[in-house]
């Protein structure tokens, strides 16, 4: 799926838990997520804290989208 979006000429960032699968399927900009049932959340946190966590992941995603990459890159920080 990520490749088809890239192929259409749109830069795409893949936020996913299982980074190795993302690498295998060929995503170029990757942001590691929290866990499979809640990639952008953590139910053990309070509502506000959880949203802050989500925002921190999306900040990374925006950073990835505005960063030039030459090959597969995982944006850990």
């Amino acid at each position: 799926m990520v490749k088809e979006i890239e192929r259409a000429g749109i830069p795409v960032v893949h936020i996913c838990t299982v980074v190795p699968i993302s690498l295998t399927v060929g995503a170029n900009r990757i942001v590691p997520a929290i866990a499979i049932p809640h990639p952008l959340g953590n139910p053990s946190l309070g509502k506000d804290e959880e949203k802050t966590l989500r925002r921190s992941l999306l900040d990374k995603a925006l950073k990835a989208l505005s960063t030039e990459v030459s090959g597969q890159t995982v944006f850990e920080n």
Partner: protein
Amino acid sequence: MGKIKVVHYVNQFAAGIGGEEMAHVTPELRDGTVGSGQAFNMAFGEEAEIVATVVCGDNYFSENLDKAKAEVLDMIKSKSPDVVIAGPAFNAGRYGFACGTVAEAVEVELGVPAFTGMFEENAGVEFKGKVVIVPTKNSAAGMRDAVAKMAPLAIKLGKGEKLGPAFMEGYMPGIRVNFFDNERGSKRAVDMLVKKLKGEEFVTEYPMPDFDRVEPNPAVKDLSKAKVALVTSGGIVPKGNPDRIESSSASKYGEYVIDGVMDLTEATYETAHGGYDPVYANLDADRVLPVDVMRDYEKEGKIGSLHGKFYTTTGNGTSVANSKAYSAEFAAKLKADGVDAVILTST
């Protein structure tokens, strides 16, 4: 029951029109057999018959791919065949490519079984995961051998029967087909391990694939002016799953308008995905499709805008080819809607 109706696809050389100098000829539909078709008819006996042949120059086909493919398909369709044979192409690369393309298009677009034959080093062999390809010798001198292998497959496919796995039917491995082996899997595994430990030859039941790659697109210059879209394979759908996206092996994707939606709530959205524990996503779908934070970004001017629609599917058990087809479809829509960047979330 009458004879199985076969349409044969050949290039200019096989049709006897000429060689390289005639490779530009446009598609032409002829009744009955042309060139090697007669050999197939002989092998078919009373069971099947080539009712028509489509002839097309290899250069014309490869240089006008979409147009040529459409023309060839129309001609084939007009004869409503039970099965289509393309080639065999032997070692001719462009012919092999044309045969693979035609056979795949006939199956996908017309829903009619089709297959081809070629030499194992022909570039057209790349189609072996998509269409049945019978291995042949490297020149037309191997026609008799090719016909002997291909004719029985044409009859089987023409009858609407399913083919067994490659090694049983004699085509090139690529398409995965189930069968019942002689030993159970655990015994096969022990035997394979013993061979591997001894350094003896063993045959893996699933050769690892090569994954294709796409070059990354340039980065977004100015996010504050960019239209960003959300896409997910986490199966987020409006409550009640109105389009009935399957929980597994999804055959379609969902497209939903989120104009004015500021936050996904338990009352409005849920997941249709069957591969993970749905509780957390059902309670708050922003955990998978982060509309809430994207709206904040929009307000703060961090991004230009959030695209008014999101796309969703369930990655679970969905075949790559299926997912590729519908992803290409919605990727084109995103492009047409002027989307500058996509955030894809997966579970």
